[in-house]
């Protein structure tokens, strides 16, 4: 029973956080909204016994990624002026329609599975412990794992290159 309550609370937090992130004129507020969403998802992982993923979510996502976001926002400066800009009226409606469409589509798609799916958590012995994930990760998925290493290094090099080789012609540090 406790799980249901926890689920409902954090589901609400996630949804509100998400909506806030989208609607907030000030990017910093959006960042905070996203932070909320991430934490609530971490909690959901815990409910789903995916402990490693929950930990990684909190450390990497909430920690590193969000701080990066905030850092960049600070670097660029918070200019709420053009947050929305000249919105085309129909654009707003269109976006809502598309979002609704997505939700309906996924809901419909899931309908078959959910209804016929197993009613309750059967509590199979699956637990997202580090060993279970590690066996899998370094077993069958070794090749993929190695390629992610490559991906990360390349991303790092890319970022450095971008920072280092930009044309130094624009010396004037344009600040907001």
């Amino acid at each position, binding site marked *: 029973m406790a799980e249901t309550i926890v689920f409902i609370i954090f589901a609400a937090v996630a949804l509100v956080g998400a909506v806030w992130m989208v609607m907030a004129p000030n990017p910093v507020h959006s960042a905070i909204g996203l932070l909320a969403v991430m934490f609530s998802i971490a909690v959901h992982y815990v409910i789903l016994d995916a402990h490693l993923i929950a930990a990684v979510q909190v450390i990497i996502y909430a920690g590193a990624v969000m701080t990066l976001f905030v850092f960049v926002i600070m670097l660029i400066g918070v200019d709420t002026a053009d947050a929305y800009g000249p919105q085309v009226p129909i654009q707003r409606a*269109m*976006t809502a329609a*598309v979002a609704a*469409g*997505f939700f309906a*589509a*996924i809901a*419909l*798609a899931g*309908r*078959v599975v959910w209804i016929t799916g197993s009613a309750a958590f059967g509590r199979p012995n699956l637990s997202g412990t580090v060993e279970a994930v590690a066996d899998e990760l370094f077993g069958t998925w070794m090749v993929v794992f190695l390629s992610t290493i490559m991906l990360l290094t390349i991303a790092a090099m890319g970022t450095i290159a971008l920072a280092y080789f930009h044309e130094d012609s624009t010396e004037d540090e344009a600040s907001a």
Partner: protein
Amino acid sequence: MTDLLWLVIALPLLGAVVNLFFGKRLGEPVAGGLSVGVVVASWAIAVPATLSFVTGSGQVETIYLFSWIPVVGADAAILWDPLSAVMTMIVTGVGALIHIYSLGYMRGDERYPRFFAFLNLFIASMMILVLSANFAMMFVGWELVGLSSYLLISFWFTKPEAAAAGKKAFIVNRIGDWGFLVALMIIFATFGTFDFGTIFTTAPGILTVGAATAITLLLFVGAAGKSAQIPLYIWLPDAMEGPTPVSALIHAATMVTAGVFMIARAAVLFELAPVSGAVIAVVGTLTALVAALIAVSQTDIKKVLAYSTISQLGFMVLAVGVGAYTAGVFHLATHAFFKALLFLGAGSVIHAMAGEQDMRKMGGLRKMMPVTFITMAIGWLAISGIFPFAGFWSKDEILAATFAKGGAFIVLWAVGLFVALLTAFYMTRMFVMTFLGRPRWDGGTHPHESPATMTVPLIVLGFFSVSAGLVNTPARLAFEHFLEPSFVGVPHIKGLTLGLIVTLAVVSLVVALAGVTWGWLAYRRDELPAEDGAFWRRSLEAFAVDDFYGRVIVAPGKRVSTWAAETMDPRVIDGAAHGVARGVLRFGSVLGKLQTGQVRGYAGGMAVAGVILIFVFLAVGGGF
């Protein structure tokens, strides 16, 4: 003795190759001597083999040399029979005389060895043509002869007219060769081989009249191209641009008679197609008439002889057309002698007059050039058909044979008679204008008799022009029996009683004498009669046939090619290719517009597509 026969081809070929590559180093006398020696050697080799036929001990033989194109069954092989013997004798014999004559005529020419190389090449090619045992090898000789005539006509290539004449000769010959080639295709399709023996034995059985007519008419197209019959005769008068010995050898004695020889060789096929026989006879007579009418007015001595050759060839074609093959070959032989004589004589006159060829600037050469005068006189009488001379016998036999054919051929006989009259007239005109009457050349030139190397051949040819006729007098028909083995299965001319022959002979003699006296009286006086009638002018420019062809065939042909080259190819075909290229480019740019650069536009597109995709998968997956 027949196993050395392949040397008759090989020796001149060898001579040509040696002269072509090492001629300059050999120097004039050696190169000339080599090429004459080679031809005389060939002649010497052929003599015993020919005599074997005369003594009756020889037999018709095919000698296998090597397999040329196995897949079409074309071998290099020699067919040695009286017909090829006669032709070999003429080609090598007259050829040798003309080679000797050329030693003198061409002295001092900077490309002297090359000239003799080409002459030897011609003799070799003519020998391939004459001695071949199958149509394929004959076709090889046929085209190689065309090549050597091209090389020799445009020998003085620095003169643009000579080069153009050479090219014209080769192309017109090539048109004839095209007809010959198509005939070869039909022959192979019907017989599966080119070998004369097989074809001539199986022809009566297999060959339908239609196929026979097709083959023979196409062969005749080839013959018309080579033997300068209507409509393919236009190259011969221009061929006079070549040195005179060339005109004598190729455009009088040997090459032009190849067409007649080919028809005689394939007599069996021509007998199976009476229609084409008639066509050939008519074309022959027509050519004889037209050429004679043109020859009458020519002022250039070589042009007169050229048109007279075409006219005489017309007679030979008439002979083979009516089926009198032996008469045709006989006239071919005698014509080779006296026409070569006349040409060489004319050459000697031109040589003496330092290149002057216009008869109106000659006259009274009798005293300065006695030997040429006498030999030319013999030639003149022979070709006019005066009694004891060779021309009388052979031309008369043709006319008799045409008469004996009866029916419509009588008309051809009459026309032939009229042409004989014209021949006598224009030859007399030429003879009188050059040798008799008042000298009309300007002071600069002082004619003198040609050196021995040139006059000796004249004398030898003069002897043959007199004696050749006696070989086949109606009484003994020795020549006809000699050629008998070559024409197995070819019917003889019927209805020629001795009485009829004699009367016809008398008639043609009278006509010849009339022609001579007419010419003599007209041109004997010192001032030349004015030749300015409408007929004269048109006849002088050969009835403008040449530029008629130019207007009707060459110009439109060129226009079509230029149209194709300037519009069809670049516009239509290339245009299509460029069109495709432009279309692709345009299509590319249309797609380009979709890239607005607006990131959010892309995001929207992706989102909408995502939704649609999900619904599509659902529908496909039966989700609803």
